[in-house]
């Protein structure tokens, strides 16, 4: 198992190096003259350009710039924003908890609803129940996060006044940010503020979770139907096991394998989806930060965030692969 993990980590190294080269060139080859001109935009004056070029080392030879860039990255220095001057790493630590809460909320929604729906459809294949579930998953993959987000906000926020439609917590509660996880901070503050934090999380989680919900429903349905047709399931029934036991010990245990792989893959997609969801619900996370950084031409932040997203995505995939190998010995020993 240890060898498997080491091999997978080693494979990730050249990929990250390749990505670092692309991102390095992304900043250096920005249209508009040079990186300093692109960052300054319409405010570019020869003095300012020279000043920024010298400060950022844009005037050094390209290979020297790249090695400096890698050197800084290895020390955890992702550069700083041109807008507020803060270190990317510092702001990331403040904003990432929000994105993590959102993705976890979406995952809980998608797994919690998608797997039972898929199992339900698989138990009654080609029935009206199957039809309804198929229709739900079709809409899940066809509706953009932002359209669903606004629709939910309109119905449950504007019309029914059941749920808040923007932000992570009611600012009037004045909760001190300790961990930057809205829910944990709300628990720490007491007074049942946690209810407010959870209610803020519901609509964005549903909006972001709609695509994974559809994917999990489909894959669970297909996987359960597949496994149900296996000989060992027929044997299990033939030897008189209860339906409950056949389901839990023989069908689901084997049907889980493809489902877990897809859950891992969708985690990465959730991070990307967070960019749109956070914009719809003015969520103070990393996703909305990417958007504002692009709008502000804050390219160093964009460059670093893409790299950080990739590292997270690859780490999640690694965990999934290891988990899969753990669940499925056939992978481990091949």
């Amino acid at each position, binding site marked *: 198992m240890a060898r498997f993990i080491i091999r997978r980590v080693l494979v990730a190294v050249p990929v990250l190096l*390749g*990505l670092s080269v692309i991102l390095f060139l992304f900043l250096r080859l920005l249209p508009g003259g040079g990186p300093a001109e692109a960052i300054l935009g319409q405010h570019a004056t020869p003095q300012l350009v020279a000043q920024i070029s010298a400060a950022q080392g844009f005037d050094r030879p390209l290979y020297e710039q790249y090695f400096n860039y890698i050197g800084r990255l290895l020390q955890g220095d992702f550069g700083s924003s041109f807008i507020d001057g803060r270190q990317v790493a510092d702001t990331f630590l403040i904003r990432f908890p929000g994105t993590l809460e959102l993705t976890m909320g979406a995952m809980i929604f998608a797994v919690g609803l998608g797997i039972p729906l898929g199992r339900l459809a698989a138990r009654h294949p*080609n029935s009206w129940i199957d039809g309804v579930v198929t229709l739900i998953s*079709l*809409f899940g993959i066809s509706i953009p996060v932002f*359209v669903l987000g*606004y629709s939910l906000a309109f119905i449950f926020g504007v019309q029914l006044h059941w749920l808040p439609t923007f932000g992570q917590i009611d600012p009037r509660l004045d909760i001190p940010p300790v961990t930057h996880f809205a829910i944990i901070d709300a628990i720490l503050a007491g007074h049942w503020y946690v209810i407010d934090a959870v209610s803020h999380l519901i609509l964005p989680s549903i909006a972001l979770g709609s695509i994974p919900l559809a994917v999990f429903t489909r894959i669970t349905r297909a996987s359960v139907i597949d496994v149900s047709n296996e000989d060992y399931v027929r044997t299990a029934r033939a030897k008189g096991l209860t339906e409950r036991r056949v389901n839990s010990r023989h069908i689901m245990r084997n049907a889980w394998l493809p489902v877990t792989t897809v859950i891992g893959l969708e985690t990465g997609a959730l991070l*990307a989806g967070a*960019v749109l969801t956070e914009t719809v619900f003015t969520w103070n996370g990393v996703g909305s930060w*990417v958007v504002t950084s692009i709008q502000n031409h804050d390219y160093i932040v964009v460059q670093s965030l893409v790299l950080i997203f990739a590292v997270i995505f690859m780490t999640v995939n690694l965990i999934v692969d290891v988990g899969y190998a753990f669940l499925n010995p056939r992978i481990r020993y091949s």
Partner: protein
Amino acid sequence: MTSSTAVVIAPTARASRGLWHDALRRLLRNGPAIIGLIFIAIFVVGAILAPYISPYDPTIGVLSQSRQGPNMTHLMGTDLQGRDELSRILYGARISLTVGVTAVFFGLIGGTIVGSIAGAAGGVVDGVLMRIIDVLLAVPGILLAIGIVAWLGHGEIQIMLAVGVSYSPMFARLLRGSLLALRESDYVLAARSMGASPLRILLRHMLPNALTPLIVQATLAAATAIIDVAGLGFLGLGPGDPRIAEWGEMLTDSSRFLQSAPYLILFPGAAIVISAVGFNLLGDGLREALDPRLKR
């Protein structure tokens, strides 16, 4: 004298007329796929005929008629600038469908080139190309497209390229997988032993047989590409010309009026969903038609 007459006996079972003909027949018998085709056709026809059937000019607004709800003169209401929403949806179909479908086409071309070289060559070439693909795949989903548009700047071509590049790794992987499996198949070995050149083997024998999953995936990708293109527009990374009607940008403009004019979200949103549903249904139908074993 009796004359003998020839009797033609009609075959009881229709013979197979080749993969594509059979697939088309199966597709046309697939109800959901037909619904998908109708959804797509509605927007394609709407986009083509937009200049003739649009009730108003999508770029000219009457400020005194700003944000009117759906009524008899403006069936889908008007936006903030008093422009007719229906006309903008029809003209928007031109941008959203063209950009989305062309982006998939770009991705397909890039993916096919890289995937065929990797799958046909194998060895070191395959290793290097797949590592490059891994780098692109390391950036999740639409984020790659966002990064590329941020780099290339605004414009329809830029969006097509950005979304196309973000889709090409998927196609390359898919094609490479099929080609690697085909490399050892009997008819490829036969062609090779008869002295066919590697290029001929690839183009005449391997590619046609690896095409089916690619066609299905491209159709399904058209659905997500339309959503991604709208997503870029929504984030302010659309065509960049405020006069151009683009479904995603129309949504951003209207989000401020969720309370007073929800129909400005409803109509462009429904247009995106219906066209995406159309391509998803068609893609699923094609999958079943081209590989009947999958039919449930």
